[in-house]
C-alpha cells in the first residue's frame, strides 16, 4: 500500500527492524524446542493411558476363571509354570506406599478414575501445545517477512470533515469527529423536541424542560440545548434570559458568529460538538438576556442541524431553511 504522507501522516517501519530476522529465527527455534519437550510429555501421557486401558481389560478378564495357568517369572531370565489363584482379589497401590485389597470391579473403578485424571492432564498439555504452536508459527511468519523485507506502515487515522453532511462546517476536525455521535445526538434532540412541543403551551413547563435539558445537555446533548433555546426564544424571550447562556446561544448562534456559518439554526437542531458545549457552559455562567455574547466562541465546532420540529424531517428543514434568520426560525417554530 502506498503511503501518502501529504495527506496522512504515517510511519514506515521495516519489519526487519521490529523483528530482526535472526532473532525471529532464534525465537522460533526456542519455541520449537519447547514444543518438542511438550510433545515428549504428551507421548508419555499417551503411553500411560494406553497402559491403563490394557490393565483395565486384563483386570476385567481375570475373574472369568477360577484360576489361570501361567508362566511365572523367576528372577531375571527364568519362568516356571504356575497358577494364578484368587482371581478376584487385587492389591491396588493408592499412591504413597499404601495398598488396598479390592475386587476386580472395584479395581476397575479405581483405574478408571486414574484414567480420567490422566485425560485431564492430557487436555491441558494439548492446550499448551496449541499455544506454543501458534507462537512458533507467528515467529516463523515474522522471520519470513523480515527476510522478504516487508514493511509495516502505520498511518494516523484522520477523519475528514464530512462536508456533504453538514452544510456549514467551519471547523472540520472538531466538527465532524463522530458522525454517529451526532446522529445519536440528533435523535435525542428530536425526542426532546417532541417533548417540548407537547408542552409548548406552558411556558413554565418549557422553562423547566429547558433547565432539565440544560442539565443533560451539558453532558451530552448540545442539540437539546440548542433546540430548547431556540424554542424558548420563540416562545418566551424572558425565559431566555433566565436560562441565560444556553438559550442565548441559540440566537447568538443565529446572529453573531453564524454569519459565516450560515447556520440554519432556525428550525434545525444544532449539534454542537464539544467545543461548542464548552461555550455553552461558559455562557451558562454568564446569563444574559441578550444572546450573542460570545459569538466568537459560539461556534468552534461544527454544527449539525437537524429538524427542529420532530415531525419535520431534518433534511427538509435543512433544505428549507438555509437562511439563518431568526425570522424563519420562529416561523418554523410557530408552525
Amino acid at each position, binding site marked *: 500500500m502506498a503511503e501518502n504522507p501529504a495527506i496522512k501522516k504515517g510511519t514506515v517501519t521495516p519489519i526487519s527492524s521490529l523483528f530482526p530476522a535472526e532473532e525471529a529465527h532464534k525465537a522460533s527455534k526456542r519455541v520449537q524446542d519447547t514444543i518438542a519437550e511438550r510433545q515428549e510429555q504428551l507421548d508419555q501421557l499417551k503411553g500411560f493411558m494406553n497402559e491403563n486401558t490394557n490393565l483395565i481389560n486384563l483386570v476385567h478378564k481375570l475373574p472369568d476363571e477360577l484360576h489361570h495357568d501361567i508362566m511365572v517369572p523367576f528372577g531375571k531370565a527364568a519362568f516356571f509354570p504356575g497358577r494364578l489363584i484368587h482371581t478376584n482379589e487385587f*492389591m491396588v497401590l*493408592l*499412591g*504413597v*506406599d*499404601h*495398598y*488396598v*485389597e*479390592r475386587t476386580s470391579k472395584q479395581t476397575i473403578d*479405581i483405574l478408571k*478414575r*486414574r484414567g480420567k*485424571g490422566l485425560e485431564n492432564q492430557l487436555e491441558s498439555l494439548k492446550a499448551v501445545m496449541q499455544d506454543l504452536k501458534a507462537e512458533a508459527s507467528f515467529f516463523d511468519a515474522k522471520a519470513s517477512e523480515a527476510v522478504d523485507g516487508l514493511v509495516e506502515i502505520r498511518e494516523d487515522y484522520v477523519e475528514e470533515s464530512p462536508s456533504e453532511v453538514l452544510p456549514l462546517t467551519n471547523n472540520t476536525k472538531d466538527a465532524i469527529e463522530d458522525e454517529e455521535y451526532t446522529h445519536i445526538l440528533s435523535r435525542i434532540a428530536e425526542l426532546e423536541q417532541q417533548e417540548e412541543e407537547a408542552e409548548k403551551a406552558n411556558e413554565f413547563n418549557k422553562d423547566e424542560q429547558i433547565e432539565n435539558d440544560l442539565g443533560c445537555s451539558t453532558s451530552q446533548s448540545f442539540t437539546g440545548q440548542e433546540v430548547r433555546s431556540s424554542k424558548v426564544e420563540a416562545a418566551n424571550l424572558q425565559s431566555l434570559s433566565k436560562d441565560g447562556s444556553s438559550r442565548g446561544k441559540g440566537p447568538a448562534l443565529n446572529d453573531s458568529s453564524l454569519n459565516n456559518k450560515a447556520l440554519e439554526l432556525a428550525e434545525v437542531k444544532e449539534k454542537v460538538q464539544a467545543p461548542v458545549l464548552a461555550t455553552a457552559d461558559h455562557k451558562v455562567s454568564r446569563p444574559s438576556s441578550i444572546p450573542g455574547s460570545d459569538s466568537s466562541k459560539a461556534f468552534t465546532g461544527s454544527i449539525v442541524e437537524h429538524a427542529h420540529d420532530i415531525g419535520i424531517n431534518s433534511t427538509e428543514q435543512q433544505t428549507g431553511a438555509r437562511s439563518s434568520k431568526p425570522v424563519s426560525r420562529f416561523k418554523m417554530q410557530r408552525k
Partner: protein
Amino acid sequence: MGSTAALKELQRDLENKANDLSKLQKDIAKNHQVRKKYTIQLGENELALKELDLLNEDANVYKLIGPVLVKQDLAEANANVRKRIEYISAELKRLDATLQDLEEKQNSKKEAIFKVQQRIQSLQAGKGKA
C-alpha cells in the same frame, strides 16, 4: 597510578559479586527442583487420600514398609496420609519463603553488580580522557 589500582579493585569486586550471583542462581534452581518434587508428592498423596475416602470401613489397607506389606487400619492410613499432606504443604511454604528470599538477594546482587560496572566504566572513561 591510583586510578589503575582503584580500577583493579573494582574489577575484583565485580568478580566476587558475579560469583555470588551465580551461586544464588544455582540455589534458586535447586529450590525449584525440590519444589517440583514436593508438588508431585503432594499430588500423589491427595490422590491416595481420595481413594481411601472411597473405601468401605472393612477394606484391608496395607502399608509398604520396606519389603513388607503390613496390614493397617483404614483410619490409621487416613491419618497417615493426611499428616503427610500437611507436612508436604508446610515444606512447600517454607521453600516458597526461601525462594522469595533468594530472589530478592539475587536482584540486589544484580543491582550492585550493575553499579560496580558503571563505576568501572566511568573510571575507564576518565582514564581514557586523562
